[in-house]
């Protein structure tokens, strides 16, 4: 499903700097449909950059990224936008819900980029909220929700277009430990029951341990990649 071959990302030299800054220095990864992958590593190791490239939110500067066998570098902006809305659902550390919109309206937002008729938006969004057990929050505004509720609303927004892959960047980073566990249980359920491919980035090994495959990054390269299933290969 996702193949990275010697993937590189180098930012141009910043003002006052002499040399460009390589962030990814040759990443080799293969992710199959239905995998639950955690990308671990310290701050600055390149894991969020990698996630942004996977989600077509950022470009790479070297190597190859094949999505369903197609080279992403060759995608035009329309194809990239389609991948972002159809293939991937995004969950962020800071939830990124619009404060001026209700939960239902936040969840409906990605549907504007789908083929679903406008008249069905409410029904689809509500059904997604129901699947996560938070339909009762639909008329509330984000400021009235707890952190865990906001993150579950954000997960509903990520799911509403039925993407194949959920990309989660430190999804529990702003939550206490118990609420973080609830979010991880939600993601695990999506993986096990809805067969979603989950790729999450975290610096927390306890969060990473929910995944079946772990990729550990150091200084822009993969230091370790291993399966958590007994006898499993990376």
């Amino acid at each position: 499903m996702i193949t990275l071959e010697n993937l590189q990302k180098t930012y141009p030299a910043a003002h006052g700097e002499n040399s460009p800054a390589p962030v990814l220095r040759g990443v080799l990864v293969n992710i199959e449909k239905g995998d639950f992958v955690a990308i671990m590593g310290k701050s600055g190791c390149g894991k969020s950059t990698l996630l942004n490239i996977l989600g077509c939110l950022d470009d790479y500067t070297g190597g190859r990224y094949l999505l369903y066998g197609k080279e992403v570098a060759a995608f035009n902006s329309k194809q990239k936008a389609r991948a972002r809305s159809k293939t991937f659902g995004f969950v962020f550390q800071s939830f990124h819900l619009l404060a001026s919109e209700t939960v239902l309206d936040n969840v409906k937002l990605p549907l504007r980029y789908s083929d679903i008729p406008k008249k069905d938006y409410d029904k689809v969004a509500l059904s997604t909220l129901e699947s996560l057990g938070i339909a009762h929050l639909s008329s509330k505004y984000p400021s009235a929700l707890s952190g865990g509720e906001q993150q579950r609303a954000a997960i509903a927004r990520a799911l509403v277009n039925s993407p194949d892959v959920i990309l989660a960047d430190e999804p529990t980073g702003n939550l206490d430990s118990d609420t973080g566990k609830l979010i991880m249980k939600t993601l695990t359920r999506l993986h096990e029951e809805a067969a979603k491919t989950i790729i999450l980035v975290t610096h927390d090994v306890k969060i990473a341990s929910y995944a079946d495959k772990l990729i550990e990054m150091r200084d822009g390269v993969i230091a370790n990649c291993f399966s958590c299933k007994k006898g499993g290969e990376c």
Partner: protein
Amino acid sequence: MSVKHLMLAMFAQRDMYGYEIKNMYDTLLVVNENLNFGQVYSTLARLLRDGLIIQIQDSENETQDEKKIYRITKNGSDELLHWVSQADNWNAYPDNLSYKLAACRIIDRDALLSSIEAYRVGLVQKMSELTKTQQRLSDEQVGASLVIERNIFRLESDINWLALCIDKLNAQVENDYS
């Protein structure tokens, strides 16, 4: 190891057969290797010898004289309460890895680093296994869940500490060669 005390805690609930003790032990302490029957009966023999339990006649199965049923004694209950009330000791690890690290400047550091990396990966895999086991527990298995949680926290601490070890040993190697 307090297998005998965990057994006394089970006998404090009710009289039990040896196989019931084994099953309850395995349910309570999901995280450890299952207790084998040899350990069950050798521990029962010690508890009997020390007067902490007694063997009684099973009134409901008088014909099955091979089945032995056990009951906690007053001494057993006192011993159980003493065990529960005692503060626990924290032990420094005098394990194999500690000795390897103590010798890090006089042994092959590449081999040491590679063994630490492999050990750390094994711990992460173990943590993942425990996380998934904990998720499968029912709400009633609160004791087992707490024991698993303790081990997850210990693993987290070791995994992070091992990353620090790797960084420091690598820095040491670079210093030695610069």
